[in-house]
């Protein structure tokens, strides 16, 4: 772009009719993303949204950028090809709990360990919405659904724990309707490498209020919004997280009169991988829900290292097709064909 025109959220909206159920959390996430894009100052022509299959995967059709609505579970693999072919592109992956952690779990894992520079927004609604409400790999034990009328029996996967275990260098959480979501998206965008964001998204039709225990207004005290360099306080500063040195784990402590230091509340260091593991593993209930940027510690990105290696391997060599096909041990046949 020759001149920087200040874009608005509208510039990132397509003329396509949005077809999610009324009241679906996806609308809020779409709005948050469309609001955030102008603030990031990105060029729509240089932005690509890649999705798999599921309710949330319709997302690219509503973004006035380049977009690729692919097949179930494979968005990370397709995005890898996009980014390697043109590392200048700003790549966003839109996926869901079934898409990213069930059918596409393998690709999600490998994208994270390779550290492709992109943003992954995992819309977690703990259910298969598009196929009409079956339990998903993030559904809690006992979830009643058309395929589990007596309740699901298998334990759920923890998306952020999965991401960390796969080698992710950026792990964050947000809530569809929460005002902090744009901040989380901006942090993800600023991170060089695979930025994994779990968005708690309410499926009003098949799994309504499944996250109400911390997203409902009355339960806001259960939200722990992490900020780098700040103490881990929640419930309006009345509670905090401290280190249980005996159990080598976290514990919830009461904070009197704002004196978090004497309560032993720890300060958030997003580069502390050990604490990040504790934060994603904290059982909700006795503990709050950790939100915001849980972990952020960049490493060289996959495409930068791979493409640099390609350049180094090619350095000083001239691409000469004729020389290429003539390689190896050759011999010359000089005489005319003999008659036989």
């Amino acid at each position, binding site marked *: 772009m020759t001149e920087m025109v200040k874009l608005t959220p509208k510039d990132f909206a397509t003329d396509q009719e949005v077809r999610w159920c009324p009241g679906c959390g996806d609308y809020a996430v779409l709005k948050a993303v469309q609001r955030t894009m102008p603030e990031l100052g990105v060029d729509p022509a240089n932005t690509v949204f890649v999705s798999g299959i599921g309710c949330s995967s319709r997302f690219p059709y509503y973004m006035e950028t380049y977009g690729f609505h*692919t097949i179930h579970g494979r968005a990370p693999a397709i*995005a890898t090809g996009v980014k390697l072919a043109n590392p200048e592109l700003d790549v966003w992956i839109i996926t869901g709990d079934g898409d990213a952690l069930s059918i596409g779990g393998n690709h999600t894992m490998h994208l994270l360990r390779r550290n492709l520079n992109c943003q992954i927004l995992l819309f977690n609604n703990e259910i298969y919405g598009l196929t009409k409400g079956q339990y998903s790999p993030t559904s809690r034990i006992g979830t009643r659904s058309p395929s589990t009328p007596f309740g699901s029996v298998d334990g759920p996967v923890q998306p952020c724990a999965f991401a960390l275990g796969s080698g992710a260098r950026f792990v964050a959480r947000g809530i569809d309707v929460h005002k902090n979501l744009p901040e989380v998206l901006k942090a993800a965008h600023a991170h060089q490498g695979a930025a994994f964001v779990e968005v708690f998204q309410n499926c009003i039709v098949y799994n309504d209020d499944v996250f109400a225990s911390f997203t409902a207004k009355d339960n806001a005290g259960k939200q722990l919004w992490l900020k780098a360099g700040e103490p881990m306080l929640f419930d309006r500063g009345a509670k905090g997280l401290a280190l249980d040195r005996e159990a080598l784990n976290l514990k919830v402590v009461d904070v009197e009169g704002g004196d978090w230091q004497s309560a032993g509340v720890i300060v958030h260091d997003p580069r502390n991988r050990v604490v990040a593991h504790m934060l994603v593993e904290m059982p909700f209930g006795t503990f709050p829900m950790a939100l915001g940027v849980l972990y952020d510690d960049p490493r060289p990105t996959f495409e930068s290292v791979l493409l640099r290696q390609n350049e180094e391997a090619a350095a000083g060599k001239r691409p000469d097709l004729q020389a290429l096909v003539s390689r190896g041990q050759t011999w010359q046949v000089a*005489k005319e064909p003999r008659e036989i």
Partner: protein
Amino acid sequence: MATATHLITEVEPRTDDAPEAVVVRFAGDSGDGMQLTGGQFTLSTALAGNDLATFPDFPAEIRAPQGTTFGVSAFQINFGSAAIETAGDAPDVLIAMNPAALKTNVGDLKPGGLIIADEGEFGARNLAKAGYETSPLEDGSLGKWQLVRFNISQLTLDAVKPFGLGNKEALRCKNMWTLGLALWMFDRDRAPIEAWLRAKFAKAPELAEANIAALNAGHAFGETAEIGSPLKQHHVDPAPAEPGLYRTVTGAEAISLGLVAGCQLAGLPMFFGGYPITPASAILHHLSRLKEYGVTTFQAEDEIAAVAAAIGASFAGQLGITSSSGPGIALKTEAIGLAIMTELPLVIVNSQRGGPSTGLPTKTEQSDLYQAVYGRNGDAPLPVIAARSPADAFDCAIEACRIAVQYMTPVMLLTDGYIANAAEPWRVPDMSGYERFDVGFHDAPLAEGEAVNPYARDEKLARVWIKPGTAGLTHRIGGIEKNVGTGHIDYAPDNHQAMTDIRANKVLGVADSIPDQDVCLGAPGGKLAVIGWGSTFGPIHQAVRRARGRGLDVSHVHVRHIWPLPRNLGELLRSYERVIVPEMNNGQLKTLLRDQYLVDAKPVNKVSGKPFKISEIEAAIEEALA
């Protein structure tokens, strides 16, 4: 367009001073280095100017238990002073490095053929492992062949003694001793092999020298062999060949080079997504060393990711390529459907192997034709090309790239385990003779009030290719059906019919850009046509040539473009009274021909993991004409 010349002699064989061909098979334990020995013997054969074809045959196990029959690895080469199209039906010479190698291979040897055996390996233990009760070298059971035997193991140990290697390492030089003997037998120059050994063992010069000593000792042994022994020196004249520069090439090399050439001719960088699988991995290995040609190789986490990443790269403006064998192609199939739906260029190479399932991973078969032509959900057509030989694979790969970018479609290129591994002489093509097919990305700014339509088409029905990053042309594509006029999501019945028709017609239209079907030996019209495709070219061609030499009215038609078929093929088939279709499957091209042309194509099937023998096709010709 220049063609890669795999020389086909159109002349019928003559009786006096007939051209000569010799078939040699090296067989040993999979740890004996037989493939290496065969490879180097092939090189020396090519340098001597003979035409040749090879057939490497090795077990699926990397190191099968030593001395067992299932651990035997063999390499066969057919070379001669006239055009050679197959690796030969029956060996004239069998070199057996142990009892198991003798046992599994001697049955193929021509009556009166020569066996060279390493008697040092014929001890009681090895005999028992191979299931021999008495030594075949002693008990007269090899009476119908000529037998020479000597203790190659001991002779090798003696030859490399000055280099102070351990016993195990010293015995490893056995294959070079054997190669030395073979080089003497066929009057070959040792210098290129010595140069190769020095380069191979550059970091361990004593190993290079020990191997060269073994090579020389084998050669010297031949020279001093007693007169009257069946071991005789034999010179095979060079085969006639078009003048030019030659090299040997395997199918995997030729495909890799052809893909690089195809991308260069299209003016595009290549993105190659692969996942290790036998026998397709060799293509990934070759390409990963060619970065200076704008090649990015990506070893993905699975077959699906390999093709998906290639599709992503095509979306972003490179030429996405993936390769595998049948089971891997099955995994890629859903993604191939996405490429068909989103009309993105993609080349898929299938190095077919014995199936179904894991089947016979290291053996050859051509049983994925149905999979290529029919094997997807929905009406999902794509062009299919089949290579006939290692050298032909080069041009087929270029052709696959051309069709993919000119028609915005995935293209499947079929080869097989035989083509991938086999080597043959190849006249190095003149690259300036190839027509370029540079890709023009769509980047024209929109007119006032105009909307982006990613499904706008040219006269070939190919849609526009708009690279992400192009200002003003942002758009979305995906697997859901799109409106024929706007490219937006559209589930309407008439629209789906229209789009299905366009996808089918676009692929059928590829037939306008391919040559008419030729008759590669014989005449258009007559009593019998033998229709082949893929790697059955060699045995069919030789069998038809021999039959014609005996005065039979039979012609050979070899189909490269499996889908769409050449425009004139139906008419050509109907010009023959009878049609037979030899295939290494249960009759797949036969079904396609019957379906398309209602011709009474008769199957000739072989599904044993081994290529056809010339004699088998000859028998089928006799039977069809009876």
